């Protein structure tokens, strides 16, 4: 099986190389015959299949406990349940790179499967650039981080080393693959972009396809980032979900630039401008995914969960420079095709708002990148290494994010091309006044800090503009009886006619919910440490906690102490729930981990950590967090992902343009 896995990997590498070269040759030649394109198409699909068999071979080695293979020995042992043996495939660097290769290739194969209906001029180049991504990652996997290496040991090891206990968790099965799907998915719009530049064809079809594929990668990335936050929240025991750690930032950076692109591409679609800008955003997004991989695998910045330092960093830098140089060169070569067809006419237009949104997103992106790379920059420039932490990211990003929320409310309600001031006042009077009322109400209710009040009222502003949009959409429907009423039938019609538009509103609604949840958890979180003997109580927020008893357990590789703690509302004696936080002592490496006890609620989460038990075994020290509205963060994320899926569902070809209004227009002029 080792040979088979290794061999599949070799075939994949050769095929990818062949498609990169073949695609370039066919694309630049005059004769793009269907037969040649078909051959390239099949090659692209086959790369995914061979990488798939290679991945399966690695999985087989894990499941059959083949400890002659170094990687299998490092990351699994016989006692692990089979599911963790599977997830151990991406538990370390070598296997995660192989998974990465497979996913890039799988996305390329999906593109290839649908490619018969794509603009023919760019298809050959498309295959070439898709495979160039696969080729790069496969090169690293095959030559630098090969997971099929044999263990250098004179005897066969009887048992493996085992997976880090923190990674033996069901989120390990879903979070990394989801994140990788997001990262690798964004290689597709990059390939589309480069193919368009290479072939000189940047048609409307191209825009639609690129946007769809960006949206798919974006949706996966959104899900992956939030799942990572959820995992950290449940597993790491510090009561939070996001710490601006370099690894988290690495996943956030391409998300920001991809989000910017999804907005600015709409301007290109309608106005034929911002072409260079959009190319810049796509290439930046892809470069940031590569940079993220570089960041986590090179050990260049200190991180809580960076992979061990390796010497593959330079390959990423070489690849990054290649991407940038090629993109730059092609853009200069195609500069006449990239000239904007018109300019933005007015500050009060949706184009201008979208551009502003792009600039805010890029400012956040730049600030985060600056924060991540600051240790490196400061050492290079001043010779003294300095770093920035959570306070930096909050200080810069909170105002920028609030600006973004504001623009999110404004954007959809402002007309394309130009709006006049009275018109704007009319559109925004109700949302603005109601947001102001909310702000005043909050201040009277005792929320007096500036940013939380602003965040809540801006979220409300956003909500009102979305509702206003739906209302106006309902009133504007022609040929419907009782236009303007919120009847299910009217809403369905509206939905069917403008699914993409209202899908975007759904995403925005999810963002608003997340904003409220994040603000609440930043501004009103309660955090207390306390010690209790059995029978004693501690009050926190609107709850009381009573320690009942301890419970000890001996398991195969660790012993555990659990504290049984009764949670009550302060006003009542009825127990709400018995929380059971746990401490584990792993015998093998003398490490302790904590298992959080969590009561999720609509109003707040109660999050309890057992910190220690004194020598006599009679008192427990604990830390409790009361996180208001925490659960809404996850709901908001789910809403965003659902919105992403709604928008990404393909529209029947041609249906969009050819619908009633434009046909009538075409006949009338």
């Amino acid at each position, binding site marked *: 099986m080792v040979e088979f896995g290794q061999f599949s990997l070799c075939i994949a590498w050769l095929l990818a190389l062949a498609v990169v070269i073949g695609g370039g040759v066919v694309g630049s030649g005059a004769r793009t015959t269907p037969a040649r394109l078909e051959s390239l198409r099949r090659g692209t699909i086959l790369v995914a299949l061979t990488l798939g068999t290679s991945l399966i071979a690695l999985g087989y080695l894990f499941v059959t406990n083949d400890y002659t293979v170094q990687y299998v020995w490092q990351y699994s042992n016989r006692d692990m349940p089979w599911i963790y043996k599977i997830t151990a495939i991406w538990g370390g660097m070598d296997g995660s790179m192989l998974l990465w290769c497979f996913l890039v290739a799988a996305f390329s194969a999906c593109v290839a499967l649908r490619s018969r209906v794509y603009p023919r001029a760019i298809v050959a180049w498309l295959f070439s650039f898709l495979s160039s991504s696969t080729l790069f990652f496969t090169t690293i996997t095959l030559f630098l981080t090969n997971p099929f290496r044999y*263990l250098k040991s004179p005897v066969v090891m009887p048992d493996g080393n085992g997976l*880090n206990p*923190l990674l033996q968790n069901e989120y390990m099965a879903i979070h990394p693959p989801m994140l990788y799907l997001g990262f690798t998915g964004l290689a597709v719009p990059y390939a589309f972009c480069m193919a368009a530049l290479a072939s000189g064809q940047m048609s409307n079809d191209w825009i639609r396809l690129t946007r769809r594929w960006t949206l798919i990668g974006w949706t996966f990335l959104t899900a992956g980032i939030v799942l990572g936050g959820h995992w950290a929240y449940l597993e790491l025991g510090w009561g939070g979900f996001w710490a601006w750690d370099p690894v988290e930032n690495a996943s956030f950076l391409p998300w920001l630039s991809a989000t910017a692109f999804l907005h600015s591409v709409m301007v290109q679609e309608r106005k034929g401008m911002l072409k260079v800008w959009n190319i810049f955003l796509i290439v930046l997004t892809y470069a940031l995914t590569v940079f993220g991989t570089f960041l986590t695998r090179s050990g260049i910045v200190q991180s809580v969960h960076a992979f061990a330092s390796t010497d593959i960093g330079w390959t990423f830098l070489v690849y990054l420079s290649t991407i940038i140089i090629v993109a730059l060169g092609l853009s200069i070569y195609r500069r006449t095709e990239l000239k904007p067809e018109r300019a933005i006419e007015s500050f009060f237009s949706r184009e201008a708002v979208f551009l502003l949104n792009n600039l805010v997103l890029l400012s956040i992106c730049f600030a985060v990148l600056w924060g991540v790379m600051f240790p490196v920059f400061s050492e290079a420039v001043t010779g003294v*290494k300095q770093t920035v932490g959570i*306070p930096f990211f909050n200080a810069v990003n909170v105002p920028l994010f609030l600006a973004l929320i504001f623009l999110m409310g404004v954007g959809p309600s402002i007309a394309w091309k130009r709006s006049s001031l009275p018109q704007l006042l009319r559109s925004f009077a109700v949302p603005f006044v109601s947001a102001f009322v909310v702000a005043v109400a909050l201040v009277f209710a005792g929320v007096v800090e500036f940013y939380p009040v602003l965040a809540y009222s801006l979220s409300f502003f956003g909500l009102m503009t979305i509702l206003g949009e739906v209302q106006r959409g309902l009133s504007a429907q022609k040929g419907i009886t009782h236009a303007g009423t919120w009847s299910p039938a009217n809403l369905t019609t509206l939905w069917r006619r403008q699914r993409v538009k209202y899908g975007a509103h759904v995403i925005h609604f999810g963002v608003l919910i997340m904003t409220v949840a994040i603000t609440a958890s930043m501004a009103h979180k309660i955090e207390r440490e306390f*010690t209790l003997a059995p029978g004693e109580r501690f009050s926190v927020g609107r709850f009381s906690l009573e320690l009942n008893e301890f419970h000890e357990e001996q398991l195969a590789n660790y012993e555990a102490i659990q504290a049984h703690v009764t949670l009550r509302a302060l006003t009542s004696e009825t127990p709400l729930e018995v929380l059971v936080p746990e401490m584990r002592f792993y015998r093998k490496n003398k490490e302790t981990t904590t298992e959080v006890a969590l009561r999720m609620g609509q109003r707040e989460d109660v999050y309890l950590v057992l*910190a220690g038990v004194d020598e006599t075994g009679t008192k427990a020290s604990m*830390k409790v967090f009361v996180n208001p509205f925490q659960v809404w963060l996850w709901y908001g994320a789910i809403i965003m992902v659902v919105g992403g899926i709604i928008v990404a569902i393909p529209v029947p070809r041609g249906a969009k343009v050819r619908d009633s209004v434009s046909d009538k227009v075409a006949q009338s002029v």
Partner: protein
Amino acid sequence: MGKVFISLVVVFIVIGGALVYRATQSTSSLVLSPSEVLEKGSSRDLKRIRVGGRVVDPIQYQTEPQMILSFSVKNPAGGEGVVPVVYRGLKPDMFAAGRDVLIDGDYLGGTIQAAKLQTQCPSKYEPVVPGAAPAEGDKPTMAMN
């Protein structure tokens, strides 16, 4: 390029730059290794530092009346000297002697007062490969049959 486009871009470069500059000035901290802390902190206190080091015994953890974790760190790559650390708070997961940690805090009177303590994991969990040269004496080593 339209005037609107250019003016918006310029405004944003200025605003973004100012925000980043101000936040950097007010929040950045020095990155030091334990031996550099000893060297630079011999004559004065060091405010706002980040230290990456390897935990060495003795580790003391008291939970009453307050959670206080005290331990020492040394250079992960080897080197002279250990620096005592005091952290008032919950002992992080996977904290143990031989682990690498990131400490944010101040160096006052010969002790690092940690405001934040993070154990470097979980992905950084690379076991020693048999046959490879052992890097450090105190790394957990695997039994060789």
